């Protein structure tokens, strides 16, 4: 019976028992849940559970060669995150972590669009508590924005699913096309969660606001779930190649100027997603293998980097490059783990990034996409610059910051060491790693040309950084905010709308046109409800405006589609 439930389901349900357990028992219980859930991975491929409600078949548990590698790495990520967070006595965060991981794993096993939608929303509503766990006013407001964007994505998915069901008579999760409206809506839903260009603001806005443990969990699941969904439904969609290339390209520059190191990692996460999106866009067996391999390796090394920065944040209290430096003496193990993560993400041979990224680069070569290939090569040098060098260098070396923290707690060290060992093992034994990928493709990443090219590219990029730093050309890091695409809905839309309202007011006063009277009454009515009656406190008022605007935009789009 228990085997017919999808993996992850037991984690999602079991999470709600956590408040009743003592602190030590809680950690053991959570690990037990992950192990129990992972047993269902051995069920074999096929559909294991469907539930019929109102003549509609919800395919709750369907597993195949694409969902399995993602499910494996999600379990590993959940396991590592639990160990990393076990120094904390915070049952709320524990519930959020385990139910979020559970929902994401269950989403991988959805066989139809409506089941996917349910888990899609479940990941949004469980993960928002991780951001709230940051326990600051900024985190509170960021969580507000986060849930709006995530629910937007869910709404697009639901609208797409309904249209799809209406036109096809079924809502099976399979290959789709962006040429029909339903496909386009679903594509947008996936695109928001996969942080496509201009839809990516939420990622860099919210991830760094969570607690040191929350960010590790956040970095693992949502975006990779979107990559999985894209690989399942939009493999071989040409536009993804260009979207992905843009994604690898532009976050590099933002990462270079950003000061908060966890935000730098969030940009870098966006850039890494670009590689996967390009691979999904190519859509050949080798490329899909590349996307999956990259997602797998990426979850581990990105988690490792976020963990090392989380350990720094926990011990020092800040993650800003301008306030850090010289921590190697005090946190050597954290520093070494961070460097291993940095080397892995930069794709040095013998580390996990190399064996995964090579698949994508080679598939680009086979398809003859030279321009995209060189864009990604450029992005690879960029990854080295902002994740490979900037992260460990500004945190653990550079100048003395005056902080003298203790080494990270034992549980954090254990989690980071597990991550590091996995990064190295995947890099050394690629043939074993390739066996869990969706398709069996013969591929050898370690040949003379490949290794030499990659080493030349990376060491010379590193050498360029060394020159810039040594000759003091590299400017100091500054405390700052870097504008990102969230600026549109945090600053521009509110400004435009308040200008329009002001303009209407002036018109109204000058010409005393009566038709604006009704408008004003409505506006004042909402204003009174929102602010004067204190239904929503002023702190959240601004974000509520954003919520209403985005909601308005969605309604507008839906009406537009309906009329079309």
């Amino acid at each position: 019976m228990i085997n017919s439930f999808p993996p992850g389901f037991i984690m999602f349900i079991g999470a709600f028992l956590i408040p009743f357990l003592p602190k030590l028992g809680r950690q053991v219980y959570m690990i037990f849940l992950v192990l129990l859930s992972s047993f269902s991975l051995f069920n074999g491929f096929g559909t294991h559970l469907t539930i019929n409600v109102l003549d509609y078949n919800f395919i709750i548990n369907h597993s195949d060669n694409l969902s399995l590698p993602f499910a494996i790495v999600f379990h590993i990520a959940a396991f590592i995150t639990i160990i990393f967070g076990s120094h904390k006595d915070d049952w709320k965060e524990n519930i959020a972590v385990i139910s979020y991981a559970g929902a994401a794993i269950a989403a991988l096993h959805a066989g139809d669009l409506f089941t996917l939608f349910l888990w899609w929303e479940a990941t949004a509503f469980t993960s928002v508590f991780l951001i709230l766990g940051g326990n600051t006013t900024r985190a509170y407001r960021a969580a507000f924005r986060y849930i709006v964007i995530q629910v937007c994505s869910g709404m697009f998915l639901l609208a797409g699913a309904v249209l799809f069901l209406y036109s096809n008579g079924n809502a099976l999760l399979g290959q789709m096309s962006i040429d029909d409206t339903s496909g386009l809506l679903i594509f947008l839903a996936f695109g928001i969660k996969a942080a496509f260009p201009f839809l990516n603001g939420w990622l860099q806005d919210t991830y760094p606001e969570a607690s040191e443990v929350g960010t590790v969990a956040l970095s693992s699941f949502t975006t990779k779930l979107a990559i999985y969904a894209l690989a399942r439904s939009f493999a071989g969609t040409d536009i993804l190649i260009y979207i992905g290339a843009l994604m690898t390209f532009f976050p590099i520059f933002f990462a270079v100027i950003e000061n908060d190191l966890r935000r730098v990692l969030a940009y870098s996460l966006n850039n890494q997603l670009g590689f996967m999106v390009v691979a999904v866009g190519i859509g050949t067996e080798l490329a899909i293998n590349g996307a999956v391999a990259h997602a797998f390796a990426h979850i581990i090394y990105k988690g490792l980097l976020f963990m090392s920065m989380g350990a720094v944040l926990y011990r020092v209290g800040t993650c800003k490059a301008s306030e850090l430096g010289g921590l190697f003496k005090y946190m050597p193990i954290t520093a070494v783990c961070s460097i291993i993560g940095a080397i892995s993400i930069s794709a040095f041979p013998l580390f996990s990034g190399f064996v995964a990224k090579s698949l994508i680069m080679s598939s680009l070569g086979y398809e003859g996409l030279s321009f995209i290939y060189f864009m990604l090569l450029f992005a690879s040098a960029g990854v080295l610059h902002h994740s490979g060098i900037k992260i460990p260098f500004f945190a653990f070396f550079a100048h003395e910051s005056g902080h003298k923290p203790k080494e990270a707690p034992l549980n954090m060290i254990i989690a980071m060491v597990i991550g590091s060992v996995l990064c190295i093992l995947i890099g050394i034994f690629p043939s074993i790693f390739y066996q869990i990928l969706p398709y069996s493709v013969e591929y050898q990443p370690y040949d003379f040309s490949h290794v030499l090219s990659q080493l030349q590219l990376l060491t010379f990029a590193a050498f360029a950084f060394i020159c810039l730093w040594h000759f003091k050309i590299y400017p100091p890091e500054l405390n700052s905010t870097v504008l990102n695409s969230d600026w549109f809905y945090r600053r521009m839309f509110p400004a435009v709308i308040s200008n329009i309202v002001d303009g209407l007011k002036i018109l109204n006063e000058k010409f005393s046109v009566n038709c604006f009277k009704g408008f004003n009454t409505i506006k004042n009515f909402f204003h009174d409800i929102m602010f004067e009656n204190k239904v929503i406190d002023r702190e959240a008022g601004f974000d509520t405006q954003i919520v209403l605007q985005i909601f308005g935009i969605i309604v507008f789009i839906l009406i537009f589609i309906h009329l079309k």
Partner: protein
Amino acid sequence: MILLKLIKKFGKINSIVLFICILLLLLEFVGHRHGEFKIEEFLFFPALFGYISCIVIFKVGVALRSIFMRDEDYYD
């Protein structure tokens, strides 16, 4: 003697990286390095590409500071 001076001036770790860089360039002559595209097989192509990319990223990054950088409490 000159080497020691260089190491002293440039720092130990930096010198090691420089040494590895030179070694990697020399390895180019050991065997034929083929690439996915013809242009990649040009002598020292990956090295030049990596070096120039890094400088470009840095330059563009610095230029973008003036456009995208705001005070820390910009949104507060």
